[in-house]
């Protein structure tokens, strides 16, 4: 165990302390400075009223959850999941995205999110495909499959791509989650062992002929290896696990972002789970490399190849 003695309490202390991350950065931000500052810019933009010229245009980015080609649904059993064809009965399917941008011939334009007090806060939106039915018994009845916002005035021409980041931006991730607004105040998405949030929580139970007793398989992605003090101020996470996603050929008017659990698990044997059940971002967990790389995360020097999101 490499955890420093105070780190976990410090991470938890982030919930108890006020914003402790002011002016901080993390490994992610260090690696891609421009992206990190673009984050900030988006936050500031959100605080400002759009130009009164009333030329900002509404935009809706639609999402869908699937397991392969089958639409995701709590209560369903999905066959043929993973390398050995497991049966997957979902118990959760939620993830955060932030810093959405569209690409036109003129370049990149940020999507300024509508502040709805529910699914969207600052630059972050929660996509939620579980409805508490079936085995998804510890979720919420409400679901959300879209991100709603505006594009800046003067954004013209066809949209050719979508860019966003999976997860919660650094400053919000390490603020006090207990006093955070929705959708950052859902305790089932708190990442209590490191502070911050589960960027994605995709859980299921696996059954098959060899193992008829369903066993839980969890996919929890979040920042790990975070530092901090007793006051909770996390300044850096060794593994931010905040993924930049680019989807070419995406036009909001015609396309949907599909989050595909089947493809994400295409390199995993979900019949087995050594250590923690599934992958909860532990670096030593043998199930993690395949899953994390499927999100596009570099693991042990091997770059990821994002296969979770695609355009339809």
């Amino acid at each position, binding site marked *: 165990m490499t955890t420093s003695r105070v780190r976990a309490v410090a991470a938890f202390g982030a919930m108890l302390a006020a914003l402790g991350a002011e002016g901080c950065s993390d490994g992610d931000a260090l690696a891609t400075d421009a992206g990190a500052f673009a984050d900030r810019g988006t936050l500031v933009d959100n605080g400002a009223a759009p130009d009164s010229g009333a030329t900002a245009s509404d935009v809706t980015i639609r999402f869908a959850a699937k397991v392969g080609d089958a639409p995701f649904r709590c209560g369903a059993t999905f066959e043929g999941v993973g390398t050995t064809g497991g049966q997957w009965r979902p118990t959760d399917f939620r993830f955060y995205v932030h810093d959405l941008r569209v690409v036109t011939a003129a370049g990149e334009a940020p999507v300024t999110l509508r502040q709805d007090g529910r699914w969207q806060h600052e630059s972050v939106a929660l996509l939620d495909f579980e409805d508490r039915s079936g085995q998804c018994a510890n979720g919420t009845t409400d679901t959300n499959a879209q991100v709603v916002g505006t594009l800046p005035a003067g954004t013209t021409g066809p949209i050719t791509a979508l860019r966003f980041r999976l997860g919660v931006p650094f400053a919000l991730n390490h603020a006090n989650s*207990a006093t955070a607004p929705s959708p950052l105040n859902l305790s089932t998405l708190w990442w209590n062992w490191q502070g911050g949030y589960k960027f994605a929580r995709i859980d299921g139970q696996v059954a098959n002929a060899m193992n008829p007793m369903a066993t839980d398989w969890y996919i929890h992605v979040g920042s790990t290896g975070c530092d901090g003090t007793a006051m909770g101020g996390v300044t850096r996470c060794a593994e931010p696990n905040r993924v930049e996603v680019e989807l070419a050929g995406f036009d909001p008017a015609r396309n949907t972002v599909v989050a595909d659990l089947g493809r994400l698990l295409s390199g995993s044997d979900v019949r087995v789970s050594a250590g923690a059940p599934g992958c909860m971002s532990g670096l030593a967990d043998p199930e993690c490399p395949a899953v994390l790389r499927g999100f596009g995360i570099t693991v042990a020097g091997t770059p990821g190849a994002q296969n979770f999101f695609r355009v339809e």
Partner: protein
Amino acid sequence: MKSSRLRRALVTVLLSAAAGCGDVDPVVAPEAEPLLTIEAPPGFPAQRLSPDNPYSLEKARLGRYLFYDRRLSGNETQSCGSCHQQSRAFTDGRATGLGSTREAHPRGAMSLANVGYFSALTWANPVQRELERQALVPLFGEGPVELGLAGRESEALDRLRRDRRYQQMFPRAFPGDAEPFTVANVARAIAIFERTLVSADSPFDRFARGDTRAMSESARRGNDLFFSERLECFHCHGGYAFTDSVVSASSAFDETAFHNTGLYNLDAQGAYPAHNTGVREITGRPEDMGRFRAPTLRNIAVTAPYMHDGSIATLDGVLDHYAAGGRTIASGPLAGVGRDNPLKSGFVSGFALTPQERRDVIAFLEALTDDRFLRDPRFADPFGNEP
């Protein structure tokens, strides 16, 4: 001031004598008008109140008296505070509850520390959401009888109406009501008092606020173990309330969770004892067998015995249960291998602890004890009956 205090003390003595409970410790006699607030402590969100029951100090003070008033039981032997004793973080030290008529309750009294933040109340009832409604269960429930007021509400309200203190307090707490002495108002006042029971000053909290000496080295090591993927405790006992069923003023969505921890497995199909099946008792769904709410771990060291039925005596025993990935009962009517319960939460997968690590985890759990909360005179029994 002095004479009114004397009178109050005298009333307390008389009331206690009438209820057949003699000794009154004058030290326990509370301040005349305690400041009972529901303000969020540092790092906590604001509570979400029931829309028809806004906070007022008068209501909180009335609620405190009602909470501890034995006239709110059919035979005037028990109050809410009989099973929810402050010195035990508002539990009673019993494995399972015992009502005013000596009828046994299948489950143990839950702590009321931070109860204003719980999205689901009681051990295993997904539809029990509001303190105002929950209070009616112990007051009027018949299966089991707790306070035993079913069919006797007029009698109980008359008892309150005759009391000179309540003749002042009820109209002040419910100033718009032509008839403030109602069952609904009793529940409202008790609910507001319960909301004031906020525990946020344990060594853990002080450490998190920057007092590095608040927690011992051992407790700090235990903290790391508690919040590790190795033990997985935090999945269900995480967050400021140390439970995963929480609600606050900023909550946009309903969030409640119930878990089967493999405490029993009577038939290899996951069965729990018939009188204690958890959420299944409410929903009738087979898959809800054995699912119970994760209780808060704040003040856990003073709330033994543990689990919904008090079937584990010590924190050490609780660690045995989770380390084994579920409890095995070798023989008798409850025999079964809880580890193999097919309905068990995947987070209860077992772990091994060295003796030192075990001491560390327990030291951490003990660091969640908020002594100030347990002794706060604002929350004490004004009648001097309950510890």
